């Protein structure tokens, strides 16, 4: 009778080890992922690069199509939020500028970003 309990305990130990290993130590690695599956830091990089590409080509349809792959309901708000984050997180002027222009082209803007969108000359 005692043997059965020991065997059951060892079985449970094996089961636990299997679960921990497969869930935590070496979880399933998904390949063929979509952009929406990227880690947040890479998604931010992606949006920034899309804004760079837009600054280079002026192709808003291409930018919109690329952003749609992130599977967010409102890409304009997404870009705007990245632009506003860039303002406070030490991004370069060029990065903020590109994000602000893309957000504006998509129909989103905020007062904090308006200096990057002012096209008219002013007297200093």
């Amino acid at each position, binding site marked *: 009778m005692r043997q059965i309990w020991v065997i059951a305990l060892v079985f449970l130990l094996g089961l636990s080890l299997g679960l921990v290993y497969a869930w935590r130590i070496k979880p399933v690695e998904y390949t063929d992922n979509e*952009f929406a599956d990227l880690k947040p830091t890479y998604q931010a990089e992606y949006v920034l690069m899309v804004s760079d590409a837009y600054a280079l080509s002026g192709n*808003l349809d291409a930018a919109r199509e690329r952003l749609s792959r992130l599977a967010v309901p409102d890409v304009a708000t997404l870009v705007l939020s990245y632009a506003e984050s860039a303002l406070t997180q030490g991004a370069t002027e060029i990065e903020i500028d590109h994000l602000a222009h893309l957000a504006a082209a998509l129909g989103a803007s905020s007062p904090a970003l308006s200096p990057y969108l002012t096209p008219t000359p002013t007297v200093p």
Partner: protein
Amino acid sequence: MLDRKLLWLRLTLALALGLSLGLTYAWLIDPDEYYETDPANLRADLREDYLTLIALSYRINGDLARAQARLTTLGKAGKPASAAALADRLYHSGGDAETIRALALLAHTLGAQSEAVVAHLPTATPTMAPTPTTTPTPLPTTPPTATPTDTPTATPIPEVTPTLDVRPPYDVVEQRQVCDNLEVAGIIQIYVQDANGQGLPNVEVQVSWESKRNRFFTGLKPEINPGYADFHMSPGQMYDVTVWGTQVGDISTVGCSSGPSGWRLVFQHRE
């Protein structure tokens, strides 16, 4: 003795069975659904799009370190040879010239060569530093000059490595201080032209002084010239004027005995 062996056998089997069931359940039946991935695990076509974006971004910001860091996250797909190979494939399939050029530039900078890389990099141009120190910010509505003069041929890759032209696309063809003209006094007049001398609207101009900067575009006064823009200076202040990375410095109202001076600057796009 036999009982002992039997016990160990049963324990080993129980452990193996438990382990197998645990792995099967966690890997196949109910894998961890919450995951976030790296660019290296993207679908193959999306990896190529990510690589293209890295190249386009590098083309506009010239930040090689950042491009390399981004390429690293792509794993094998981020090797310079991958950029060259993708440029080749797009080149032969009639892909977008700007994209091919960007990939070719990135591949070339990182030491990879291919037919597309050779074909899309200008030859016989002066050697400059590979990373521009001034990053131009183009207006999206005015794409940079992409003159796809390259035509696919089956000729072998030349031995001579072409020199990469990373000069800003504009030359300063006139930089003149204007005295004795009240209409121009205290004003920087900026004219941006194409290679044929025609005014170019919607070109971004940056004027900077101390730690401040103003950005505006040509074409706001088409009655003067389609490529015209101007800026009002403050007396005694020194200004730098930049058009697409081409900079003219030390502009001020000082220098004319008759009063505040004006300036006329003409930027012309290179052929």
